[in-house]
């Protein structure tokens, strides 16, 4: 990776263009629009030729690390390999050229994708039906909570405004609850990291809408008491929501629907192999148990009695269609996005599921879990392992066993030890992306590692060797970790100045 220091604006030269629109057969222009409705100056976008655009973005890409470059052991992110057949399918011109409001009879193929994916994900998770409208995991969480609230509201249960969230939960859980108008009540974890059922019992009541959990939890541990937790929550009239970010180890092994979960979301860009894209687009489909199906958001794809696929509940549809279209949608939680979600992402996940097939689905969770445990056992002499039991697809270390810190005789610090951040930065020098750091909040020097099932033993062994080497470097002298990375295009950025004196656009540069 080579340092390349340009911005597209700096390549701009008056009069250059990079497009080809062909001969103009028209004569009128937007200059005919009344002047009071038009902008006063031409928009300040760069003027660049095609070759300069291509070179610029190609050079930018070479400062990036992707799953295709190397191993990404990011806990909680499931950075598995992104199969290229998915890309081919998502790029098919026929699919790209479909307008989302085309009459259902003209898009039976696209609607069948939704219908079949609904069936496939329901089979894998043990739920009854899915919506694909949410565009990301957090969006799915919000949608799931909306369904939970709508269920209680339409049952006249207006007191249920609280949702229980474990203290080990990912930040999106309480944030989604707040956006949905729910108050968060925290349930504590025991020393082994699992939800403390004794701390849960006093929180129950008729003001509880439900609980948001992930299983395995954010420490990679299976919530053994899940059946008891489900009984308790259902017993007080609440619903169970499953955060599917940690679905990977359960794929092919167990189904959240069978554990008592009523609502769940999946991250297609995690367990279902769609690429992360540098931070999106993702897709967060939400599945529900039978009794909650009427509360799913709209629009929704259904199959009618003639085997034809239809879209129900679309807003703003023709006057003649309104009554037919709204049938069965009266209890819906509402509309959460513009059209039918991220079709391009759904296509990729569908191709992945078809490639796996019913035979190979059974291997996903088990191999993910095996890999995680293998790494965990291999490094536990060098990194503190707070929870030594068998984990699932991910696990947490709490910093180095020997961080190289030194104290003087009077107790003052003579040499600062290497922190989790320093270990993460040093890993970059060896061609590995760092694991997730400082999450979950339960452990101050948390390093969360998730290899996924798509990595070979050679890759994992190489990672283990490097982690050992870094631990030994730290014990010897942490300075080399603290000044890392040395082999990346840049060294550590000054995040403090970035926050204190924000420069957030090119036009801000002086």
């Amino acid at each position, binding site marked *: 990776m080579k340092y390349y220091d340009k911005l597209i604006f700096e390549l701009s030269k008056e009069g250059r263009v990079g497009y080809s629109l062909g001969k103009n057969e028209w004569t009128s222009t937007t200059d005919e629009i009344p002047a009071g409705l038009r902008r006063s100056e031409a928009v300040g976008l760069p003027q660049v030729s095609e070759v300069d655009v291509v070179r610029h973005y190609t050079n930018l890409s070479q400062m990036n690390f992707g799953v295709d470059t190397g191993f990404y052991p990011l806990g909680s992110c499931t950075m598995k390999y992104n199969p290229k057949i998915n890309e081919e399918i998502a790029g098919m011109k026929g699919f790209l050229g479909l307008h989302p409001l085309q009459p259902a009879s003209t*898009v039976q193929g696209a609607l069948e994708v939704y219908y079949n994916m609904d069936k496939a994900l329901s089979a894998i998770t043990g739920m009854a039906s899915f919506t694909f409208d949410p565009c990301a995991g957090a969006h799915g969480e919000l949608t799931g909570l909306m369904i939970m609230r709508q269920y209680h509201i339409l049952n006249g249960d207006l007191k249920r405004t609280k949702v229980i969230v474990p203290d080990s939960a990912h930040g999106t859980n309480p944030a989604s609850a707040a956006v949905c108008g729910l108050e968060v009540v925290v349930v504590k974890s025991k020393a082994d990291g699992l939800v403390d059922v004794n701390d849960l019992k006093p929180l129950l009541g008729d003001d509880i809408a439900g609980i948001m959990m992930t299983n395995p939890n954010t420490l990679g541990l299976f919530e*053994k008491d899940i059946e008891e937790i489900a009984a308790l929550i259902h017993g007080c009239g609440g619903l169970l929501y499953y955060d599917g970010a940690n679905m990977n180890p359960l794929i092919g092994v167990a189904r959240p629907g069978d554990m008592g979960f009523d609502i769940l979301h999946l991250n297609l860009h995690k367990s279902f192999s769609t690429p992360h894209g*540098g931070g999106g687009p993702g897709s967060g489909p939400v599945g529900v148990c039978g009794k909650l199906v009427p509360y799913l958001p709209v629009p929704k794809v259904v199959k009618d009695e003639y085997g034809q696929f239809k879209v129900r509940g679309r807003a703003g549809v023709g006057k003649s269609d309104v009554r037919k279209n709204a049938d069965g949608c009266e209890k819906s939680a509402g509309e959460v996005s513009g059209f039918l979600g991220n079709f391009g992402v759904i296509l990729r996940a569908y191709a992945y599921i078809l490639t796996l097939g019913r035979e190979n689905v059974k291997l996903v969770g088990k191999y993910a879990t095996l890999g995680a445990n293998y790494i965990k056992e291999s490094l536990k002499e060098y990194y503190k392992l707070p929870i030594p039991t068998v984990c699932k697809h991910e696990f947490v270390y709490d910093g180095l066993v020997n961080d190289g810190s030194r104290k003087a005789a009077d107790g003052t610090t003579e040499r600062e030890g290497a922190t989790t951040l320093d270990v993460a930065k040093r890993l970059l020098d060896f061609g590995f992306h760092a694991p997730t750091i400082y999450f979950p909040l339960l452990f101050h020097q948390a390093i969360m590692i998730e290899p996924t099932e798509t990595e070979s033993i050679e890759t994992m062994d190489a990672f283990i060797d490097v982690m050992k080497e870094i631990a030994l470097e730290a014990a010897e002298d942490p300075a080399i970790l603290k000044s890392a990375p040395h082999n990346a295009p840049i060294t550590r950025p000054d995040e403090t100045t970035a926050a204190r004196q924000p420069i957030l656009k090119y036009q801000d540069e002086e």
Partner: protein
Amino acid sequence: MLDRVGVKSLDDLYSDVPKDVIFKGEYDLPAAMSEQEVRDFFESLDSKDEKLKVFVGQGAYDHYTPSVVPYITSRSEFLTAYTPYQAEISQGTLRYIFEYQSMICALTGLDISNASMYDGPTAAAEAVKMAPTCTKRKSRVLVSSSLLPNVIKTIQTYSYYHGTELTLIPCKDGQTCLDSVKAELARNDVAGLIAPSVNRYGIVEDLTGFAEAVHGEGGIFIEYCDPSALAVLKTPAEWGADIAVGDGQSLGIPMSFGGPYVGFMACRNEYVRKLPGRIVGETTDTEGRRCFCLTLQAREQHIRREKATSNICSNESLMALFVTVYMSLMGPKGLKEVNDRSYAAAHYLHDELLKTGKFAEVFDKPFLKEFVLKPLMPVERLHIKLHDGGFFAALETEEGYVSFCATERRTKAEIDALVALVKEA
């Protein structure tokens, strides 16, 4: 491997899972397919879809996509990269997001843009949620009924749950009614107003007086816009808006049956800490080199949790790259041409349709590339004729109008063919 872990079989790894929860059946999925079988399968699905000439907009526009754009976005270093939390190996992602933020600010005239949101409707819903936090002790938000139906529905859904009170402002002569806005403002509890720059009827709204009225009562003005049209239309900043939102799909993203698209949000400096989503900022590294990193992260969900400005985590990063490359290739000249040709095609279509005598004008207002007409014949008959001719056009709206759109991709020959079919209907 099993030895190192200390178990005898893969199943032992799940010994802590209650036995009755372990799935013992066969998954109801098709058998595994080879790559070629996957290709054939999707080819057969594709053949069930009709490729029509698109003459409808309503939030998804058939604009030209330059070949360079998908070529760049399919580069694996962009496609398979994670969120740029480790800045040292994500400078590619961080730089293009910075460029994207800069371009959105250029289009809207506002000070700060975030790194993207899911789509236009959710960006609008988030802006509406933001309004009370940007003002002192005001809680109600006015929503123009001239916004697209799916935008209104999404705003209403979000607000229903987080408790923001909404009031729908009616239209007058096809535009947001200013008198109604003023009447509502008089109650002194309005945190903001959201209105479109180009509305659901395709009309370019005259927003004179709106910002002034809203500001006069201590509220903020949110404008919903088509970013491609902002290359020629008066900007949100020029109209006095505080926040601008919309969908970047019109910047060359294929219609792709509804997604992935990209929402944008830009605002004035004073509201930066209320802005949801990621933001990239410029800084230097320890060697003094210019570099970029995620900044102002204390607003985001992973730190502030339930006090975060939003719950957004993943955004639409790769689609932000898509539109950034598009805007780099098109530049100001290209975007003006796209708009000019769309304008010309749409006005030609409009005039020719009226000449057939089968439609009546609804609004006599300026439009860009979209318009509505009142059909003087049964809509079903019109639809059958147009569909048989290979067109998707005349989308029926809630009011019983028909909506048309023409972009730079629609030729005079196509329009003449469509009009000929209308004459026969």
